């Protein structure tokens, strides 16, 4: 399977311009014979929307996304976007395939501590879900959701093959020369090695009022090894091959799900 990682740089609030650029990325991925392209969280709108949320959110009933949905006849698409529905706003993710919306997930865990204000502007989704795709069972997690152990448990119990984490993760440093990239390395390593999933982490780039989204997207194989690292801060479209048979081998090597009583604890 060939995947395309769109380490995308959205412009804050410029939905039309972002959609046009998203289509260009999709066309390039199609030209390069990719099976699936993944865009980061809130790729259509930018991240720190505040009151822009009402101008920059998309109603699925509108035609705004019709070109992109149409393109999913040629490539599967995962897209993070600001959604408007029944006068509420959601931080959502789509899985599009063969001209259809297979999944429209609304982010469940909206951070509102420190610099984050998501819960002030977005309504909370209420379910995690696993999407059956032509490449296997896929979990799409939206940024902060991957920080919650309950979500890791869900991933394990879902018997999934691929876990896709889309994010708009801002950069900062910790002590001892560590930085934000470390926490994502740990999360991707944990999920991939303990669930036998490929984990594909796609983070956006670009600055918003001084806050830098750092890219450095990741792919971990089902054995827990990092097989891809995107550039720090740079917008880019990366194409890489995944050997899907690794999933079965990894699950055979470490059949943690065999212990069925675990799920009832």
């Amino acid at each position, binding site marked *: 399977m060939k995947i395309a990682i769109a380490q995308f740089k959205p*412009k*804050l609030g410029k939905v039309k311009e972002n959609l046009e650029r998203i289509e260009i990325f999709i066309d390039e991925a199609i030209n390069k014979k990719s099976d699936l392209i993944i865009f980061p969280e809130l790729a259509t709108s930018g991240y720190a929307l*505040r*009151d822009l949320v009402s101008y920059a959110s998309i109603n699925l009933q509108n035609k705004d996304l019709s070109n992109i949905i149409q393109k999913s006849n040629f490539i599967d698409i995962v897209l993070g976007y600001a959604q408007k529905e029944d006068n509420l706003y959601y931080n959502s993710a789509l899985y599009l395939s063969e001209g259809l919306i297979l999944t429209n997930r609304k982010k469940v865990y909206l951070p509102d501590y420190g610099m984050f204000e998501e819960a002030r502007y977005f309504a909370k989704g209420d379910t995690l879900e696993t999407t059956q795709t032509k490449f296997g069972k896929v979990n799409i997690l939206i940024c902060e959701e991957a920080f919650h152990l309950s979500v890791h448990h869900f991933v394990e119990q879902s018997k999934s093959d691929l876990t896709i984490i889309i994010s708009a993760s801002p950069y900062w440093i910790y*002590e001892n020369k560590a930085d934000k990239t470390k926490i994502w390395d740990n999360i991707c390593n944990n999920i991939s090695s303990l669930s036998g999933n490929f984990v594909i982490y796609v983070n956006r780039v670009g600055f918003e*009022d*001084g806050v830098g989204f750092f890219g450095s997207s990741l792919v971990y194989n089902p054995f827990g090894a990092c097989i891809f690292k995107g550039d720090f*801060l740079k917008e880019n479209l990366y194409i890489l091959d995944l050997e899907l048979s690794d999933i079965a081998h990894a699950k055979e090597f470490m059949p943690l799900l065999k212990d069925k009583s675990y799920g009832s604890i």
Partner: protein
Amino acid sequence: MDPYKVLGFDEPKIADYLIEFLRDEIYKVGFEKAVIGLSGGIDSGLVAYLLKEALGKENVYAIILPYKTSSAESVDDAFKIINELGINYKKIDITKMADSYIENNFDKVRIGNILARLRMIVLFDQSYETNALVVGTSNKTELLLGYGTWYGDMASSLNPIGDLYKTQVRILSKYMGVPKSIIDKKPTADLWVGQSDEEELGFSYDEADLILYHLFDKRLSIDEVINLGFRENIVNGIFERVRKNQFKRLPPIIAKVSRRSINWDFRFLRDWGQI
């Protein structure tokens, strides 16, 4: 406790980050150039080095703004940076402007504020002439302590080093190749003859940076910071300085009358205005 160890970071990565910040935030509002006031000190020196990487030397304008009491060493150091980087420069003496307003009975702090604000006027005027943005050079230590002139040296369009403590400015300056003599010299605002930041503040930057870092970045209580071994009066004094100077870090407050008031419930990032 070694501040250079506690506050250390991956220098090439942070340099890349700040260079990309400058490019991104300047280009997105339709500009390609930057203007800075170059004092000959480490802070504006570091910003000059970052700007050259971000925009190219032909797009950086360093303005040297001496007053009659400014030390000759400051001007020499500013030229050291300009020659090293090959950036554009202008030297504009502000003595005439300042002295046409200053009277004999003005004390040195009052004069210092006037000089800082005159420099701001010249920088923003130069930014108009060169179609450039004014890039700020205040560091996090100064901004937290309020050790700067409101609408003077604190005024700018954007600031790449405002989240770096003085210690971190020194670490990054070394990596960026700022001349050693500039990194090592005694910090001074040079607003009057013989002024020293650390004498005026009553503590060293090394000590202040560690105290500020533990109080605010790590969110320790005052007592917890004192228990780390810092002097009680200094920790209390620093906390009070930060509290009293909060006004300098915010736009003016506005009396709320309507249902939707600027910044309370009319909330947009500045990047809303990008092209």
